[in-house]
């Protein structure tokens, strides 16, 4: 069974806050859900499927369904693959709809890492009884140096330069200047990026995404329901998911699980990278984008640096407009998990509702891709391909 043509994204909402010290995480989830329902033209009682991940408080699914008053659920899924969980949720929602397990699915994400002072510089506490932790935690393994080791190896293997990495941030900043909600709206240059302080070599401060409070929500529905609503139709064509770790000690930092999730999504959708008019690419760090573009097939392995250079990711300028909301690098990275905002901006593009300065002309097919966890140790990848009807 395929999800192709079986489900539509009918509601999408990005919470406008970037700092919310006075709100609970549950409230941010609920406000995001309300926004997505209003966007879709649906109500609370229409929801019979619910998806959330590790950012949801308490027991997650149980606490959030109770808090929001989701009393008609007949399908639930709390798949947790870090920041790409929400792309997998969309795929799983489409599968559930295709199987008749639900009609209207809600996906929510929210968090307050900015208010809580949580960043990629400090170790996370994963608890005990984890066989990998004693062999990683003593060495100061944190988010940023995990990705930095991927960047260092990419430079060594393929000759990628700091300036090429910087172009990813430059392109994001060109888009963010048009987003009134973006945390960082100043256009930056390659020189600005490479002259910003080193955080973990070879990554500079401006190679890193923002830390923001916020949230987002999506509504996925069966075709008959989608066609009864008044919003432009965004149909799911294909999806893929994969995970990759340290391979028993045969560590290979030169590719990601996007190699597998992307291939599966393109196969199911029946399209190729050349058909994609707009791409949301997870941008936790600049290297994340280069790695994913290669593994998704937008360029050959090792040529990601050349691909992103000279503004090739800037809408209206380059061949592959990406992250036209400013992405995680400039706009928003709620809960330190950027997956849902990747889908939301792709939906805006397909609806023709992106900011006019960055709206891609004739945007009929778009891709959203997420990486969750740690690219340098163990991560998930999720790819969605969507079409405007």
């Amino acid at each position, binding site marked *: 069974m395929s999800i192709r043509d079986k489900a539509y994204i009918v509601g999408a909402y990005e919470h406008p806050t970037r700092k919310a010290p006075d709100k609970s995480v549950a409230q941010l989830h609920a406000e995001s859900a309300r926004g997505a329902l209003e966007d879709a033209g649906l109500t609370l009682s229409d929801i019979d499927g619910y998806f959330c991940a590790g950012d949801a408080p308490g027991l997650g699914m149980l606490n959030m369904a109770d808090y929001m008053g989701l009393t008609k659920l007949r399908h639930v899924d709390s798949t947790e693959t870090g920041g790409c969980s929400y792309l997998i949720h969309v795929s799983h929602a489409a599968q559930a709809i295709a199987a008749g397990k639900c009609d209207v699915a809600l996906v929510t994400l929210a968090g307050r890492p900015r208010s809580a002072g949580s960043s990629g*510089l*400090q*170790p996370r506490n994963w608890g*005990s*009884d*984890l*066989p*990998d*932790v*004693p*062999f*990683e*935690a*003593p*060495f*100061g*393994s*944190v988010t*940023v*140096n995990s990705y*930095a*080791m*991927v*960047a*260092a*190896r990419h430079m*060594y293997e393929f000759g990628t330069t700091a300036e090429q990495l910087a172009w990813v941030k430059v392109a994001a900043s060109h888009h963010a200047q048009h987003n009134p909600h973006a945390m960082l709206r100043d256009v930056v240059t390659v020189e600005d990026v490479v002259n910003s*302080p*080193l*955080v*973990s*070599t*070879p*990554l500079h401060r401006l190679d890193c995404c923002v830390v923001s409070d916020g949230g987002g929500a999506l509504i996925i529905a069966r075709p008959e329901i989608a066609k009864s609503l008044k919003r432009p139709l965004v149909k799911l064509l294909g999806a893929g998911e994969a995970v990759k770790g*340290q391979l*028993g*000690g*045969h*560590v290979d*930092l030169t590719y990601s699980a996007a190699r597998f999730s992307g291939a599966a999504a393109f196969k199911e959708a029946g399209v190729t990278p050349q058909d994609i008019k707009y791409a949301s690419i997870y941008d936790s760090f600049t290297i994340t984008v280069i790695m994913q573009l290669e593994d998704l097939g937008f360029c050959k392995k090792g040529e990601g640096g050349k691909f992103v250079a000279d503004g090739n990711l800037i809408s209206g300028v380059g061949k592959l407009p990406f992250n036209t909301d400013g992405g995680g690098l400039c706009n928003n990275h709620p809960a330190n998990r950027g997956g849902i905002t990747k889908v939301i901006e792709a939906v805006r593009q397909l609806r023709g509702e992106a900011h006019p300065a960055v709206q891609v002309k004739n945007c009929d097919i778009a891709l959203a891709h997420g990486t969750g966890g740690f690219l*340098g*140790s163990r991560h998930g990848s999720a790819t969605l391909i969507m079409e405007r009807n």
Partner: protein
Amino acid sequence: MTMMYQPNPIPAPAQEKGNEPFWDAAKLGKFLIKKCKACGQTHWYPRELCPFCMGDTEWIEASGKGTIYSLSVMQRGNPNPYCIAYVSLDEGVTMMTQIVDCDLEALKIGQKVKLVFKPSEGDGPPVPMFTPM
């Protein structure tokens, strides 16, 4: 420019079930890795079941010699900069570690390194790190 290694506090590794022999050996200056009794392959990090065939595994002593596969010098969030790295051991597996006792700015991927145990905080066991040969 040079950036000579200066130690940070090393959090004591949690001694999880099944890994006690590794830390007991470390206290004696021995560096162990795991090998599968069924397929004969080595792996890292140590597990009771082989990640390649699910066979039972045993500890073997490793040479402590290897090559830097990748590295990053972390310059924020700690008292002193430190170099996290993946080192590919001569036994064929790659492990996360730190490179110590050297100029961190001079380190390069492909460089040969050797094991050095460093004490962890409190009563914690020594942890395996590496320094240039």
